């Protein structure tokens, strides 16, 4: 499917989605609460068939967090990016996608570890790279590292 076709068929199903086409990929913007039905349809509907989640990450914009999902379909060879805005930066929460793509089990643990985003219904949500006793989330912009030396 071309970007235009994806846009048309997605907006028929999910009117809440907005679009951004300035970058390399077609971006689908949505709020974190509405993410799950959209992403489930993109994974399961045969016409989209996004079977490869090649990148999952988070961006801290200080006022809010954005979860970024890069999706590719091996069969149809189309790719999109989904951006879910999490407005609550104190207790950020979002539904997991680890049941749709198993690679998300590790990637979501990494985001939980470094950004503090809690993934609801995740099978094994523990810190991945840092110790359980570590305080704070290093990739957040408000994280202060007392040991950092500026030369």
């Amino acid at each position, binding site marked *: 499917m071309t970007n235009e076709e994806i846009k048309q068929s997605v907006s028929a199903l999910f009117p809440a989605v907005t679009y951004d086409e*300035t*970058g*390399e*990929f077609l971006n689908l913007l949505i709020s974190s609460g509405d993410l799950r039905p959209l992403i489930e349809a993109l994974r399961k509907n045969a016409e989209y068939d996004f*079977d*490869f*989640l*090649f*990148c999952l*990450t988070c*961006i*801290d914009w200080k006022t809010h967090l954005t979860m*970024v999902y*890069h999706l590719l379909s*091996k069969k149809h060879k189309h790719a999109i990016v989904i951006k879910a805005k999490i407005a609550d930066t104190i207790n950020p929460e979002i539904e997991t996608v680890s049941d749709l*793509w*198993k*690679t998300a*089990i*590790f*990637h979501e643990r*990494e985001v939980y570890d*470094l950004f503090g985003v809690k993934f609801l219904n995740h099978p094994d949500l523990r810190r*991945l*790279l*840092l*110790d359980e006793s570590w305080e704070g989330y*290093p*990739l957040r912009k408000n994280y202060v590292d007392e040991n950092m030396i500026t030369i």
Partner: protein
Amino acid sequence: MSLLGAPELTEEGEFVINIGPQHPSTHGVLHLKVWLDGETIKKVQPHLGYIHRSIEKMSESLSYRNFIYVTSRMDYLSAHINNQACALAVEKGLQIEAPPRAQMIRILMAELTRLSSHQLWWGCTGLDLGAVTPFFYAFREREAIMEIMEESCGARLTQNYCVPGGVMYDVHPNFQNRVKDVIKQIKSKFKEYEEILSGNVIFEQRTKGVGYISAADAVSYGCTGPTARGSGVSCDVRKWFPYDGYEKVQFKEILEHGGDCYARYMVRMAEMKQSAYIIEQLIDNIPEGDFQAKTKMVLKLPKGEFYQRVETARGELGVYIVSDGAASPYRIKYRSPNFSNLSALEHMAKGAKIGDLVAIMATIDLVIPDVDR
């Protein structure tokens, strides 16, 4: 709390042991917690972070010229290809392209890197499975490639050769002749490699049917590179999303359909031949001209997002730059191939014997600094 490393017994009668972080077969500081029933693996839990340096956080305070050098320390066996990915991502943001000579040099170096990385992997796989000789064979040829790297890049392992807009220096005058000699030498050894390990009965029995993963699971786990291609998943970035002129080069994407350790082994063995073939095609056709495009002293990327992927020796490396218009990136994500490949380890190892775990780890070709970043 029990002492780290001391075995525990669960209520179900399963034995819990720790492999690593200083176990020789994990090739780095990987710590695996393994639940065993007799010798059968019930569950594997990787514990990461022993070499976590938060390269992503570091990159946020470095300029677009400097952050490239930190990435040599991720997958240190594909250091040049990591640098290439970052240079390409910055070039995408600046909307410039490296001159044809620079692109060709980059591909040649990338394929030499892939060859040397696969050779090291081949030697270590043999060593892990009880064959000592391959290690010496592999290092004999690998050394010659390292010398070429040293001559042109000034370093053997962390080359730091790519810069935004091209490569740092032109290649050494000896480059072409030495590469030709090395490729000739390596090509004559492929048969030797196959005779000593591929056709070995013990080796075949330890790898055939071990660590199976289906094509659908490999995609779901985000496996890329030879790990996925061993299950028949087409995922070679050089074919899917060509960069630096790979679209003009002739080579085959190697696919095996076994899905087991032996299939992954065969993919890498055939890939070495393909890399040698690519180098042979290009080495006499390096175009004349500049080796670097003209760029400003301080690079500033426009506001926006840039995603660049390349095929390292282990799979798809993605560099995702989010720029707010400043001289250093606002956020960088490295989608490392090993991180996703490792997540499939439990799936492959479940139900296998403890001795097979070593074979599975060897054929995923783990480099731990790339997992932890």
